[in-house]
């Protein structure tokens, strides 16, 4: 009975929310007036509930035993000697992340039903929430990196669409494009790593990553760095941190779910998942420690200068994710997982409370500024740090100047292509 329960639980948790979202989408595409706000909520919530119940079923079947279980559903595709296995992997790490993700998504959905009542994009929000839930469950239970990547991409697309939720204003749309650009460029590293792992190890299965230590030092370091690049992008680590404060343009419930609890930690979950590769790559781990600590210092100093609640929260979140990254790279994986879960739970509450900041400050009063140790000991350095933090260390400008040559190249290529096409086109008679 237990294996059946495990399989059904996995299927429900991954396919349930996706099915409900697709159903809502197709019904809206066919006849939009068929679905009321309440019907959209009920259908999508049903999918999210299925995901949560599925996670619970997997938990009951696995019973948090120390062993990892691979559940093979055949293959997604098989061509010649290459195949993407429909392989799911259940262990403690997967269970913790799956339960965390499904429970928080369900909670945020309930909050959003009231918060977004009569908003124009109500149906869009809940459909995206369903796709996000499927992405999260797929990431949590993926038994092969290809499946992991499918869930990872789904989360990235949903994240960008949530940031640009209020698409009638210019700033959210620009922020969404910026976040998506960061994701996609960093995800290129993930893809390179997946393809090379497949070629070197013969498969991309999570259990097969144990063999990574047999690869040469340089190879395994390069693969680890590529995977870290993807994790840095998704978890907004330096130098890719500038999209996170901009992501606060989205509705508060999505900010809570994405940038406070689940999505921001997905990159760290990836690093926990590929820990066998990290263990074999000390140079990459050193890089992770440096980046994590640098991100924590950067974010902590910027958080102190932010005047809006969500912006300050975003940087406070970033500081903690930097620390969790450093913990993972130091090898304290269990501690990092506990830190991750506690941090996610705290932040989701803080983000959902953020719209009440004004009421809270009226009720509890403002905290008077007390000089910090740095202000007392090194006032000049403190002033410099304050000024830099106000401008977020000009990260946006630095990223823009990095992208500028690419845009210049694109312009030149487009001009050359137009000239080439003109010279190869048939001249039209102007009188015809």
């Amino acid at each position: 009975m237990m294996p059946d329960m495990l399989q059904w639980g996995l299927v429900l948790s991954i396919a349930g929310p996706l099915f409900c979202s697709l159903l809502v989408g197709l019904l809206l595409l066919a006849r939009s007036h068929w679905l009321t706000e309440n019907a959209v909520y009920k259908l999508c919530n049903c999918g999210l509930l299925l995901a949560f119940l599925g996670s619970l079923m997997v938990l009951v079947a696995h019973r948090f035993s120390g062993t990892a279980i691979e559940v093979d559903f055949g293959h997604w595709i098989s061509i010649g000697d290459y195949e993407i296995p429909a392989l799911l992997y259940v262990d403690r790490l997967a269970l913790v992340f799956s339960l965390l993700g499904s429970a928080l998504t369900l909670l945020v959905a309930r909050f959003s039903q009231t918060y977004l009542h009569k908003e124009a994009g109500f149906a869009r929000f809940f459909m995206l929430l369903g796709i996000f839930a499927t992405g999260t469950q797929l990431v949590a239970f993926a038994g092969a990196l290809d499946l992991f990547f499918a869930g990872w991409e789904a989360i990235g697309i949903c994240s960008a669409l949530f940031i640009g939720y209020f698409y009638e204003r210019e700033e959210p749309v620009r922020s969404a494009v910026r976040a998506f650009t960061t994701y996609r460029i960093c995800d290129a590293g993930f893809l390179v790593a997946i393809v090379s792992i497949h070629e070197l190890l013969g498969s991309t299965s999570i259990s097969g990553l144990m063999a990574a230590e047999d690869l040469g030092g340089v190879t395994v370091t390069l693969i680890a760095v590529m995977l870290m690049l993807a994790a840095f992008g998704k978890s907004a680590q330096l130098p890719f941190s500038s999209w996170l404060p901009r992501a606060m343009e989205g509705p508060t419930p999505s900010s809570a779910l994405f940038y406070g609890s689940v999505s921001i930690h997905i990159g760290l979950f990836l690093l926990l998942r590929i820990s066998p590769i990290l263990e074999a790559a000390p140079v990459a781990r050193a890089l992770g420690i440096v980046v994590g600590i640098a991100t924590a210092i950067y974010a902590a100093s910027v958080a102190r200068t932010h005047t809006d609640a969500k912006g300050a929260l975003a940087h406070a979140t970033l500081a903690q994710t930097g620390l969790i990254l450093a913990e993972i790279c130091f090898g304290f994986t269990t501690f990092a997982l506990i830190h991750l879960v506690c941090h996610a739970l705290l932040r989701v509450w803080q983000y959902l409370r953020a719209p009440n900041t004004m009421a809270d400050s009226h009720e509890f009063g403002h905290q008077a500024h007390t000089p910090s140790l740095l202000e007392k000991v090194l006032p000049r350095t403190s002033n410099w740090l304050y000024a830099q933090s106000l401008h977020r260390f000009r990260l946006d400008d630095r990223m823009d100047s990095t992208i500028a040559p690419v845009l210049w190249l694109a312009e030149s290529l487009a001009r050359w292509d137009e000239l080439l096409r003109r010279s190869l086109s048939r001249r039209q008679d102007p009188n015809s």
Partner: protein
Amino acid sequence: MSGHAGFILSFIAFSAVLLAAPLLAAGLRTRSNWISAACMLGVLTFALITSNGVLAYLALALVTAIHAASAWHKAPTGALYLLAAAATLVATALALAFASDTLAFGLSCVALALRAGLAPFHAGVAEMCMKQRELLLQQSSSLLILVLAHLYYIDHLPIAYEMAPMLVIWGALLTLVYALTALVQRELGGLLRSSTLMHAGMLYAAVGAGARGHYGAALLVAVSVVFALGGLALTISALEARVGKISLTGPGVGRARAFPRLAAAFAFFGGASVGMPGTAGFISDDVLLHALWEESPAGAIIIIFGSAILAVATLSILAKAFFGPPMRVHTPDLSLQERSIVVLLVVLLLGLGLAPQLLVGVAELVLGNTI
């Protein structure tokens, strides 16, 4: 085609669906093209089921000539290139008849480049992207059969095996070049043009990998490219039919409020063309990259970055074309007829994305067993 009869029958049935979808879509959209669409379907089915390479290439040449005639007035350069492709296909048939492998390979590659829009043979397809989108959609169905014919009759030749790395690198480089040009387009049609030319590079690389035995990957790439770009072409022409040409130079305009279904369809097809998970695009990208890595890791890495850049360009153009202060318009969203085409293409892309083995398994067995 020889081989296991059951597989061949199911392959033909499946291919008929693949063929019919773009033709049906174009026919529904223009209404007047039904008869020519039906004739083309007949000729293409003949090209598919005949076991003779010469006849298959001649049938493809005939269909290409019909496409050229349809394009003559609206897209003269496109028509000229299609005529050149038809002549090249006839020459390929002759080369096959005289068993001149090198010539047949070279000519078939040129015909494929002319039809798919691979630089420097891309001026025709580029013009059709801007002026004749229905034809672009219709010709994509015969492009699918051309890819299949190339895989079946040409890609097993020794010369194809030797030249595969060159095709892969050239295709990969063009993928990156046209993905970059998509970043700086100034009108909505420009995205379709850049995306089509970029995918032509990808298709070429896939055909190159096909010569080393990756038939399924090549076919999957061709099918997903045809459906995703076909959907994108339909959506763009439907939108421009309502609001005129769309410039991307100013701030974004909120057309999504006026045309929510069009916006959703554009986002879906745009996403499918750059490998959105759940669609055929994701699986074809993944399979292609694995196939390419074996032939040329550099080519695979270039395509990965090309695809990432096109994804950024697509979202950025979606934002400019659909997002912004709401626009007041009195034209309706997608009509029932257009919606049915969109739903058909969406279902096909999702179906192939979630169960790609339906196509690939059969294709691998037929192509792999007989070559």
